[in-house]
C-alpha cells in the first residue's frame, strides 16, 4: 500500500471496542503503529461496517494512560502508590504468594473473577484450573448476565437458541435457504448498544429493511419501540406475566403448532394430582426406571411408557402406534395397590396460562389487554417469527420461569430451528474453549473432585448441572464468614466491581480491603485496581492472537502489533498456568488454540489463512430442523438434548431441584406492589443499564472521541415527574433510596413514563486523578442496588426494577469537575 501502510485483517473481540466481538476489521499499520482501522467489507459478519468504539481504536491503543508496565503496590490498599516492576518480578511475586495461599488454605481459597465473559472466560478458567481452584467467578450478583438464560434454555430445550439472521449461511440473506422473519419481538434490547450476546445488533435493521415488523417490549421508548408495529410499554419486572399472557392468547385461540406440540414436547406426560409431580415408570412398574415417563395411550386405552433411553414408547402393542392423549383425567394404578388421579402436562400448562388472561396481565404489567391480544396474534400468525431478548431478562430474580415462558412461545408457534426463527446455537464446529452452560470445552479441571469445593455448587441446582462458575453472592458471604472455608485471594481480570459489575459497591470495597492478596489485570488504572497488590498490563484485540467460536463464524484473532510491555490476557495466564501446574498440558499457547479448533479439521495457521469458517451443511452446529433430522442428540435420534429428549413444558430438572417446574410470574422483591412500605418514601421505579453507543459498561470514559458524545452520567425523567420534583432539564440531581445515593444530570424526556426513571450505569471519572478511586461512588447507580436477591435457583438480580426518589441537591452536595471533564474530551 501507499506510504508504507500495511493493511492487516483481524477479528474484534473484547479490549478495544470492549464487545463480544465478531467484526472483521482491517488495521492500517505504519511503522508498527495503528494509524487507522476500518471494517472489512469482505467479512460476512459486519460487511464493512464498524461501530464508534472500534473506530476510536487509534485513541485507545496509544492512550497516554494505558498501563504499560507491571506494577507493585507500595502504599495502602486503595491508595495511589505503586511502583513499576518487570514481568519476571511480577510473575515471581504472584507465584510465591499464590503458592503460599495454596499450601496454607488450599487452591479453592483463591477466587478468579472476571467481568462480562468476552475473550477472557477460557483464559481465566485455564489459570484457575491449572492452579487447582474451581472458583471462577463472574462478579455480578445472581450471575445475572447471559448464563442464566443459557442455563434456563438448557433446562427445557437442551440447547440455547438465538434469532436467525442467516449468520450460518454463505451469502447471508441472499441464501435461498433463508427466510426473512415476518415478525420479530425485541424484548428488552435497544439498538445503540450495537452488539448483544455474540450477535451483530444491526442485523435486525437489515431485516427490518427487508420487511420484518417489530413488536417491542420495553418500558422506555427505545428506537425500536418508536419503529414497532406494537410497543408494549411494560412495567419492569413483569415480563413473565406478559409472556404468560401471550401464551394464554395463543392457547385460547389455538394458534400453536400442533405438529411441534405432538412430536417434540412432553405435553402428554402424566402428572400426579396427589403430589403434582410427574408419574414415572418406577411408580407403576416394579423395577421401572425413574427416568421413564407415563402417558395415556388412546389406541390401547391404557398407559404407555416413554422410554427415555430409546426415545420411543414401549407399549403392549407395537411402538409407533402409540397415540398419547394430550388432555384428560386418568386414573392410574400405582405400585402398592393405590390409584392416583392424573392429568397431562399440556392440560396443566394450559390451566396455568389460563390464569393470565389479558385483563389480568394488564393489571400486572400496565400493558393494555387489547395490545397484548393483538401482539400475541401477530407473533403467532407470522411465519416465521423470532424473538430477540436482551439482558433485562437475566436481571430479575425469577429469571428461569421467565425464560421458560418465552421459550414456550417460540417452541409452540413452531419457530424453533426454522429459517428466520429462533435457531439452536452451538459454537461453530463444536469448537469449544471452556465449559459454558451445556458445553464441555478443551479447558477443564484436571479432576472432577476439585469441583467439589466450588462455591454455590451444592446450594443451587443449575450450578451443579450447567453453570460452572461460583454463585457470586454466596462468594461474598463466604469472604466474610470464612465458612465452610476461608477465601484469601482474588485474581481480578477484565473486572471493575467498584464501578460497574459490583452491586452495592461499598460492600465490594470491604471485600477488596479484606482479602490478603489481589492481582489485577487490565488496560487502564481503574478504581478497583487501586486495591490490587500486583497489576499486570493487558492488551487490546489488535495485540493478540486468539480464536473465537461464539456461535458463528469460527475465526482467528491475529496479532497486528505490540504496545510497550503489555501482554495479552491469554499469554499472561498461560505463563502462570505453566508455573502453577507442572503437568500443564500445553507447551505453547498456539498448541492450545490448535486443540480448541481441532473439531473443524483445521489448525490455527490454516484457519488464520482463511480468516473465518462456517460449519458445513449437515453439521450439528449449523441449522435448520436439527431436532427432526436427529442432528442434536449424540444417539442420532430425532429430538432435543434435554434429559428427556423433548421440549419440556414441565421442567423435569426443576422438579428434581424442588423448584416450580411450570412457568409463572412472581412479583420481584422491590416494586411498588411488593413493597408498598418502601414505595411511600421511594415512589419511583428505578431502572438502570440502558446502553450508550459509545461506552461498554465502565469502559471508554477516557476516550476523547467517545466521551464527548456522552459526557455525563444521565438520568432520564419524564417531564411530569420532573415538574413534580421541581427538577429542570440539564441540572445535577440526586437519585436515592434506602441503600444510598448517586448524582446524575437530569435528562427530562418523554421517552420514560412518569412512574419510572432510567439511570445510566458504569460511571466513574478517569479524569478525577486527584481521587485514588476516581470518584467511583459519586454517580454509581449500583449504590442503590443490594446484592443477595438472587432467585431460588441462585440466578438473577433485581437490577431493572428497584425503587428510588429524586430531588434537587443540597447546596454542597454536588461536586462536579467540569474543567477536567472537558480536558478529558479533548485530544
Amino acid at each position, binding site marked *: 500500500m501507499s506510504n508504507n501502510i500495511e493493511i492487516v485483517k483481524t477479528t474484534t473481540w473484547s479490549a478495544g471496542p470492549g464487545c463480544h466481538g465478531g467484526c472483521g476489521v482491517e488495521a492500517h499499520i505504519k511503522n508498527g503503529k495503528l494509524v*487507522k*482501522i*476500518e*471494517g472489512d*467489507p469482505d467479512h460476512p459478519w459486519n460487511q*464493512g*461496517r*464498524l*461501530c*464508534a468504539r472500534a*473506530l*476510536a481504536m*487509534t*485513541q485507545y491503543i496509544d492512550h497516554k494512560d494505558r498501563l504499560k508496565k507491571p506494577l507493585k503496590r507500595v502504599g495502602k490498599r486503595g491508595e495511589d502508590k505503586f511502583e513499576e516492576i518487570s514481568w519476571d518480578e511480577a510473575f515471581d511475586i504472584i507465584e510465591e504468594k499464590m503458592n503460599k495461599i495454596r499450601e496454607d488454605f488450599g487452591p479453592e481459597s483463591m477466587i478468579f473473577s472476571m467481568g462480562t465473559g468476552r475473550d477472557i472466560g477460557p483464559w481465566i478458567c485455564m489459570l484457575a484450573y491449572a492452579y487447582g481452584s474451581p472458583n471462577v467467578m463472574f462478579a455480578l450478583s445472581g450471575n445475572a448476565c447471559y448464563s442464566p438464560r443459557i442455563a434456563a434454555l438448557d433446562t427445557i430445550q437442551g440447547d440455547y437458541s438465538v434469532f436467525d439472521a442467516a449468520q450460518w449461511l454463505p451469502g447471508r440473506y441472499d441464501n435461498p435457504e433463508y427466510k426473512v422473519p415476518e415478525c420479530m419481538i425485541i424484548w428488552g434490547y435497544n*439498538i*445503540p448498544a*450495537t452488539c448483544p450476546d455474540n450477535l451483530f*445488533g*444491526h442485523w435486525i*435493521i*437489515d431485516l*427490518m*429493511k427487508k420487511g420484518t415488523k417489530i413488536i417491542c417490549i420495553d418500558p422506555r*421508548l*427505545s*428506537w425500536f419501540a*418508536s*419503529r414497532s408495529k406494537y410497543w408494549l410499554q411494560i412495567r419492569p419486572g413483569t415480563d413473565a406475566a406478559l409472556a404468560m399472557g401471550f401464551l394464554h392468547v395463543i392457547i385460547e385461540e389455538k394458534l400453536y403448532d400442533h405438529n411441534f406440540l405432538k412430536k417434540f414436547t412432553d405435553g402428554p406426560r402424566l402428572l400426579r394430582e396427589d403430589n403434582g409431580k410427574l408419574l414415572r415408570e418406577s411408580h407403576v412398574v416394579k423395577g421401572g426406571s425413574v427416568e421413564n415417563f407415563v402417558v395415556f395411550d388412546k389406541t390401547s386405552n391404557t398407559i404407555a411408557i416413554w422410554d427415555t433411553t430409546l426415545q420411543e414408547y414401549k407399549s403392549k402393542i407395537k411402538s409407533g402406534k402409540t397415540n398419547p392423549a394430550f388432555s384428560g383425567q386418568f386414573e392410574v394404578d400405582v405400585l402398592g395397590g393405590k390409584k392416583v388421579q392424573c392429568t397431562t402436562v399440556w392440560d396443566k400448562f394450559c390451566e396455568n396460562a389460563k390464569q393470565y388472561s389479558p385483563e389480568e396481565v394488564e393489571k400486572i404489567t400496565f400493558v393494555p389487554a387489547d395490545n397484548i391480544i393483538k401482539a400475541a396474534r401477530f407473533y403467532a400468525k407470522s411465519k416465521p417469527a423470532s424473538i430477540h431478548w436482551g439482558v433485562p431478562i437475566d436481571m430479575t430474580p425469577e429469571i428461569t420461569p421467565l425464560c421458560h415462558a418465552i421459550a414456550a412461545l417460540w417452541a409452540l408457534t413452531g419457530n424453533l430451528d426454522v429459517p428466520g426463527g429462533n435457531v439452536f446455537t452451538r459454537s461453530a464446529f463444536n469448537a469449544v474453549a471452556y465449559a459454558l452452560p451445556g458445553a464441555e470445552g478443551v479447558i477443564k479441571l484436571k479432576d472432577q473432585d476439585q469441583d467439589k469445593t466450588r462455591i454455590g455448587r451444592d446450594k443451587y441446582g443449575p450450578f451443579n448441572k450447567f453453570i460452572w462458575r461460583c454463585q457470586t453472592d454466596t462468594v461474598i458471604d463466604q469472604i466474610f464468614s470464612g465458612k465452610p472455608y476461608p477465601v484469601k485471594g482474588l485474581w481480578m481480570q477484565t473486572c471493575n466491581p467498584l464501578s460497574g459489575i459490583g452491586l452495592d459497591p461499598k460492600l465490594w470495597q470491604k471485600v477488596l480491603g479484606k482479602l490478603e492478596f489481589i492481582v489485577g489485570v487490565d488496560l487502564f488504572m481503574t478504581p478497583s485496581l487501586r486495591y490490587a497488590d500486583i497489576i499486570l498490563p493487558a492488551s487490546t484485540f489488535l495485540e493478540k492472537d486468539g480464536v473465537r467460536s461464539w456461535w458463528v463464524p469460527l475465526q482467528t484473532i491475529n496479532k497486528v502489533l505490540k504496545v510497550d510491555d503489555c501482554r495479552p490476557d491469554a499469554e499472561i495466564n498461560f505463563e502462570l498456568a505453566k508455573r502453577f501446574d507442572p503437568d500443564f498440558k500445553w507447551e505453547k499457547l498456539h498448541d492450545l488454540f490448535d486443540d480448541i479448533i481441532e473439531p473443524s479439521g483445521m489448525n490455527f495457521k490454516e484457519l488464520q489463512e482463511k480468516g473465518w469458517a462456517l460449519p458445513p451443511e449437515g453439521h450439528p452446529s449449523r441449522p435448520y430442523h436439527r431436532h427432526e433430522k436427529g442432528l442434536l442428540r449424540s444417539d442420532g435420534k430425532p429430538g432435543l438434548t434435554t434429559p428427556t429428549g423433548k421440549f419440556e413444558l414441565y421442567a423435569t430438572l426443576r422438579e428434581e431441584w424442588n423448584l416450580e417446574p411450570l412457568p409463572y410470574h412472581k412479583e420481584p422483591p422491590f416494586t411498588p406492589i411488593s413493597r408498598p412500605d418502601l414505595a411511600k418514601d421511594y415512589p419511583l421505579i428505578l431502572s438502570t443499564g440502558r446502553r450508550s*453507543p*459509545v461506552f461498554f459498561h465502565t469502559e471508554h470514559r477516557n476516550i*476523547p*472521541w*467517545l*466521551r*464527548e*458524545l456522552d459526557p455525563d452520567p444521565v438520568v432520564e425523567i419524564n417531564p411530569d415527574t420532573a415538574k413534580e420534583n421541581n427538577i429542570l432539564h440539564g441540572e445535577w440531581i440526586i437519585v436515592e433510596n434506602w441503600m444510598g445515593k448517586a448524582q446524575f444530570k437530569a435528562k427530562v*424526556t*418523554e*421517552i420514560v413514563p412518569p412512574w419510572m426513571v432510567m439511570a445510566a450505569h458504569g460511571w466513574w471519572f478517569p479524569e478525577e486523578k486527584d481521587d485514588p478511586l476516581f470518584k467511583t461512588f459519586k454517580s454509581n447507580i449500583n449504590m442503590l442496588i443490594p446484592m443477595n436477591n438472587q432467585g431460588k435457583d441462585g440466578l438473577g438480580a433485581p437490577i431493572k426494577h428497584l425503587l428510588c426518589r429524586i430531588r434537587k441537591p443540597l447546596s454542597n452536595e454536588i461536586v462536579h469537575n467540569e474543567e477536567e471533564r*472537558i480536558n478529558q*474530551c*479533548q*485530544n
Partner: protein
Amino acid sequence: MSELETPQYGMLIDYEYCTGCQTCVVACKQEHKHSAGKLGGVEVQELIHKLPNGKLYITNMPFFTEMCVFCVKRVKEGLEPACVKHCMANILTFGEIDDLKKEIPEKRKSILWIKG
C-alpha cells in the same frame, strides 16, 4: 470544464433507519483526524416528537456540517466516504445527484443533502 459538466455530488440520507449509533461521527473524526471537542463532518441529532395521534416518535438525524468534504481523497481512490462505508444501518449513499435521485426510497421520508 464548464460548470454544467461538473458532476454535482450529494448524500442521500435514509434517516428513518438511522439508529443514532454515532458511527458516522467517529468514522469522520478518524478519517480526517478531527480532534475531540472540535466540529467534525457530521453530527447526529436525536429528535423526539409527539405525533398528532399521541404516539411518541424518535428520529435520529445525521446532520452534515461545514466540515464535510465528501472524503475527496477516498472517493478519488475509488473508496466510499468513511461515514458511508461504516454506517451501521447502511443508510448513507454518496454519489452524483442525478444517480442519487434514482435511489430515493419510495415509501419513506429521506433527505438528499447537497453542498451549495
